[in-house]
């Protein structure tokens, strides 16, 4: 192993320990550290519970995605399209890896706190970049495992291949995320490079990142829609060719990966592996040349020294001041903005699409044609679940981080602080709920009762999600972090806050569906009452909490 590779791996190991707090897991689970655990006391013991919750969340997500992935592969096999499974697996993994890399580039590669420390070490820049690349690749590898592996299982069930195909799948799991990771990092780096030329670096990078993610999602939806059109014809063989062509036009490497699994595909497989590694390494070298320049530009913001105190300093109440501060925090952090904002943006797009295209087309997009009136009943719940994922409050307290001393030493009641954070969440989601409610009510020509439900289900859900997020973050704060990404994407509070509220809304809805049936008016009423009650109870608990 070369010195450079060794350094990269060493840095990667350190970053993994730091990013995922692996020492905590090790320390808190090793019985030999009993004495140490006793010394650390109750707070750190609670960390074990948090770690367990994070693990539980990860397991639930992995199981759900794996099931989805397996059922997709199994359906293709059942329709006699098992040959398409490798292409489908490669494309799914590529889209997921690309979207998540775009979200992660700012924070993983740029704008992280220990940048100065890393760059001061006697290590080449390419080793630093390689270690950060590995960090992104490793996270994407998780997608590969729960998207590619289940499809591989479905493929094996239907094709019953020889040993060599097992080996291809195994190697494929590790190689499929390489190119999407490299492309994602390149696009993310371009975004950062463009953004640093502006005075409003963070705003520009946030807008560009959101646009890229939206483009990726729209692209994946577009391919889904084309497949639906053909499914209607019942021509499965034709549909198979069409899907294959669409996937390969979107991601040509899927074609190469797919051909590897056919007889004489060994060459294609070698080509796929070689190309993946080559593109990954070329991107790494390319970004290494501009890495320092981009980070320097990010750190060295334009300074003005000509400020004059001739403006009126408008006064505001403590709540309003906190709210303004919190809102600026949200807008200033690309990871925070994209992660929490994407749900609201997707809801808005969904609402607009529904209003423009109508429910029939929406059914086609969702692959549930012909469900008629049921679609109208489902719309408020779909809006509610999508909106509840836009949860800023579940990270907001932890994001105080090293600034915690400011709010703790100020004459502020914890309730005022919590209210300001909840209000920021509602500022993001309530207008979307109202706009979507209005557009959809008009498009569906809904009566008074239906209009009430279309407005109230998303509204009560989003208020519940904001309060739930706050409650979770109060219970699971984490003030020590190096990069905001650790809080916004990887913390227990963030995962439970964002997915928990969506889960609770789903469970409440199902509870109401089971005894009363789909068309009963009582279901939304029960959901609204249930959400209001849960919100009131949680808010009482939030108000009584301390920081």
């Amino acid at each position, binding site marked *: 192993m070369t010195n450079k590779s060794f350094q990269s791996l060493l840095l990667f190991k350190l970053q993994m320990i730091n990013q995922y707090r692996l020492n905590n897991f090790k320390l808190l689970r090793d019985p030999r550290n009993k004495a140490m655990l*006793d*010394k*650390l*006391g*109750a*707070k*750190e013991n609670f960390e074990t519970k948090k770690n367990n919750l994070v693990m539980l969340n990860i397991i639930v997500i992995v199981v759900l995605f794996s099931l989805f992935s397996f059922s997709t592969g199994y359906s293709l096999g059942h329709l006699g399209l098992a040959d398409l499974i490798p292409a489908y697996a490669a494309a799914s993994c590529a889209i997921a890896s690309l979207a998540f890399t775009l979200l992660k580039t700012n924070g993983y590669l740029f704008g992280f706190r220990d940048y100065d420390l890393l760059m001061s070490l006697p290590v080449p820049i390419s080793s630093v970049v390689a270690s950060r690349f590995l960090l992104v690749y490793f996270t994407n590898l998780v997608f590969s495992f729960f998207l590619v592996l289940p499809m591989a299982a479905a493929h094996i069930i239907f094709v019953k291949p020889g040993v060599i195909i097992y080996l291809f799948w195994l190697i494929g799991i590790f190689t499929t995320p390489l190119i999407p990771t490299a492309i994602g990092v390149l696009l993310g780096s371009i975004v950062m490079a463009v953004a640093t030329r502006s005075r409003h670096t963070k705003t520009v990078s946030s807008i560009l990142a959101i646009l890229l993610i939206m483009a990726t999602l729209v692209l994946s939806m577009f391919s889904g829609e084309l497949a639906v059109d053909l499914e209607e014809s019942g021509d499965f063989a034709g549909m198979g060719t069409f899907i294959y062509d669409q996937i390969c036009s979107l991601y040509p490497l899927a074609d190469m990966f797919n051909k590897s699994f056919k007889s004489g595909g060994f060459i294609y497989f070698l080509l796929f592996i070689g190309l993946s590694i080559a593109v990954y390494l070329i991107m790494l070298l390319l970004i290494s040349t501009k890495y320092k320049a981009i980070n320097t530009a990010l750190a060295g*913001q334009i*300074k*003005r*020294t*000509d*400020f*004059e*105190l001739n*403006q*009126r*300093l*408008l*006064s*505001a*109440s*403590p709540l*309003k*001041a*906190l709210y*303004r*501060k919190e809102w*600026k*925090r949200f*807008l*200033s*952090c690309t990871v925070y903005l994209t992660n929490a904002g994407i749900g609201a943006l997707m809801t808005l797009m969904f609402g607009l699409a529904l209003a423009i295209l109508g429910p029939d087309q929406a059914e086609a997009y969702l692959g549930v044609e012909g469900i008629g009136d049921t679609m109208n009943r489902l719309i408020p719940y779909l809006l509610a679940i999508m909106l509840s994922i836009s949860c800023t409050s579940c990270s907001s307290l932890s994001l105080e*981080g*090293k*600034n*915690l*001393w*400011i709010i*703790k*030493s*100020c*004459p*502020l*009641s914890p309730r005022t602080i919590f209210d300001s954070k909840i209000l920021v969440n509602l500022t993001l989601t309530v207008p979307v709920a109202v706009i979507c409610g209005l557009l959809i009510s008009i498009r569906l020509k809904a009566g008074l009762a239906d209009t009430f439900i279309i407005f109230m289900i998303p509204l009560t859900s989003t208020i519940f999600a904001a309060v739930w997020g706050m409650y979770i973050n109060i219970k699971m704060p984490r003030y020590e972090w190096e990069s905001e990404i650790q809080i916004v994407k990887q913390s227990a509070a963030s995962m439970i806050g964002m997915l928990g509220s969506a889960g609770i809304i789903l469970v409440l809805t199902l509870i109401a569906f089971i005894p009363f049936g789909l068309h009963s008016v009582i279901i939304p009423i029960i959901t609204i009452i249930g959400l209001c009650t849960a919100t009131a109870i949680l808010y009482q608990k939030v108000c009584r909490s301390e920081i």
Partner: protein
Amino acid sequence: MLTITNFSKTYKGNKKAVDDLTLTVSAGDIYGFIGHNGAGKSTTIKAVVGVLDFEEGEILINGHSVKKDPFACKKITAYIPDQPNLYDHLSGIQYLNFISDIFKVSQADREERIRRYADMFELTGSLGDPTSTYSHGMRQKLALISALVHHPKLLVLDEPFVGLDPKAALALKNTMHELCKDGSAIFFSTHILDVAEKLCNKIAIINKGKLVASGVTDDLVQDKSLESLFMEVSAND
């Protein structure tokens, strides 16, 4: 103004950071709090300003208990930690306006005070920039202005002179005297013994969590220097 009575703080694992500390800071006092690294200075200061919870002892600010009535205590107290981490996403002026809003400083007062202190610390020209672009010294200056903008009765500072240029350090010393003349009290920790000896009318020395000397500076130092007194009481322990 500040009364600390039998204050003890034990961290998890039975490590006693501060042990039975008692001292009183009166209005008009510039009270220096001296000790080695890890002696318990920051722990005491954080407990005084309500950042750190404590179980043993009592801390009163202007007669209000920090434990029972923290809101009343914080309203008249200003605190600056040794590492003034400020909101990176706010500009200097936005941060000062934020603190003024929290302490309900009137519009006229905040404008007059910000102008005065920003000019004094030569920070006016940079107030429009985000605090993320500030050097350590500039952050320290901004934190000082934010502490002074609401005219606190008790100013609690953790190593306030670290990172300040000589001109700003002089401006801070003058401001401390000015505040004390107006009836405020200042309680601050420092490693710079020369500053403590010249600036403080009272000092306390803490060693391994225990108060080893306290009182009027001149009475304690007598014909020695504060440095030799500090070495003497630290070595005796």
